[in-house]
């Protein structure tokens, strides 16, 4: 309900502060979604900034009711990534992986290294996965959306999402074992 109220304020009064709250709520998720598709931190940042501006423009120009901001912002993100690939060849980032995350617990170096190694492995495995599987896995296990929410975001049926999740995990297992 609070999200609907924020959308109402954005549409009715072009309330920038209300949109700022939506930004705070979604920025991490949208950044991760984009990052997993482009793999380059700087590009992910640029695209994510653009996504929020596009969504603002859409909300304030469309005559349609915004039923689901969640689904809208992911849709804008997906299309922005398509534009990115259309306009530019991919340059693989040589950034140090440590720059991609922030780990708060600086005391426990060993635990931190374990996490980084695990994360690095799974990140590589994910990059070999088909995009359609990667999207649903990301939304389910990292962003912890329900099947119904994922169906809304991806525009697929709930049954389809379940099938894709099952196959995605199977594929991930096969890649990790092979």
């Amino acid at each position, binding site marked *: 309900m609070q999200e609907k109220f924020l959308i109402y304020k954005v549409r009715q009064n*072009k309330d920038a502060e209300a949109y700022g709250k939506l930004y705070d709520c979604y920025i991490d998720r949208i950044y991760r979604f984009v990052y997993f598709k482009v793999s380059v931190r700087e590009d992910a*940042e640029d695209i*994510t900034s653009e996504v929020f501006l596009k969504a603002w423009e859409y909300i304030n120009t469309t005559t349609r009711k915004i039923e689901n901001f969640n689904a809208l912002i992911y849709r804008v993100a997906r299309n922005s990534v398509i*534009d990115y690939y259309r306009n530019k060849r991919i340059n693989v980032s040589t950034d140090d992986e440590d720059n991609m995350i922030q780990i708060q617990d600086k005391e426990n170096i060993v635990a931190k290294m374990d996490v980084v190694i695990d994360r690095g492995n799974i990140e590589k495995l*994910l990059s070999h996965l*088909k995009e359609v599987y990667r999207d649903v896995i990301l939304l389910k296990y990292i962003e912890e959306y329900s099947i119904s929410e994922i169906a809304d975001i991806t525009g697929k049926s709930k049954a389809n999402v379940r099938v894709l999740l099952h196959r995605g995990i199977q594929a991930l297992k096969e890649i990790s074992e092979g």
Partner: protein
Amino acid sequence: MDNIVEQLKTLKEIKPRAEWVNSSRELLLSQISAQAENSKTLVGANVWFFFKSAMPSGVLRFVAQPIGVLSVILLFIAGTGILGVNASKTSLPGDLLYPVKLTSEKVSLSLIINDSKKAEKHLEYAEERVKEMEAVSAQPLETQDKKDKIKQAVSGLMDQMEGAQNQLDKVKDANELGQTENKVIVEVALGVDKKAEELSQKIAIQKEEYKEDKELETAFGAAQASTNQTGVKAVEVVINGVENSKLEMPTKEIMNVIQKKIENTAVTVEEMKKSIEQAGAVENQVDVILEMKDRPTTATSTLSEAQEFLNQGDLTGAIERIKTTVGITNEVKDTVSHVEATIVSPAPVVNSTVVVPEPAAVDVKVNTDVIIKPTN
């Protein structure tokens, strides 16, 4: 499995840099604040707008439908009367009486309580939209006005298909139905599938006729995809109804229906392959198309699984695989039309101008400009 899920959860630690989050927020707010308007609106408009925004659409319909019905009844009495509605039945998009025709359809739909019958009614009106497309299409001159009328009919058709699909979902999710009730639902759903099949063929003819016009071809393609999806949902309802209440339906008939679905979906997969190849031939689109290169193989293998399930008599397994395949083809269609639209119609805008070619837009595309266009 648990290990993989645990590892996946560690990816939640990937976060944007805090300083970037803050600077990006500041930049965004400064950009959008410039557009902020302090114009005061009427209190009544505010209340209604908030009501519309905040209430679930079901509640809104509950309030709005009686208002709509009452308005139409008053309109009948004060205005054109029953004769006017009858006269509107043959009207076409753009005609004076066309809105009356659409409103009377909405009223008829709101008076039907049974969900499966409502789906059937949506198909009846969808057929009406197809007839309108054919009638407008047969008009001699190729003008922008004619094109707009066709697009209006296509948009109306998509609305009816969406309505039918929502009703079929409700029917599928309904619990504890008696055997007699299930039998009626199954028969109605079979009828819906048959009608969807007929309409899909008619739309395909229109699509072929307008293949030179990319915009109309894409619109017809989306309408056909939506119609096919309605057919698949109807068959799902049939299978659900038969299996839930152990109806003694002629299995061979249902298997034939599913076999037909597999064959039709195979045609769609072939079309998908061609569209990927065509889109891939366009300069600078290679990266986008590369992402989709494995979709035809996935779709073909999923459809083969559907055939295997059907051969083994597993109807649910078969329809689930068909649905997955249809989902893949629709996703590709969506992406290809997005790519093509950005090439065929470059944004006729400069700097911060906002262009809204289609009011019923659901997709967003902005570089320094904003372009909003429809997708499926």
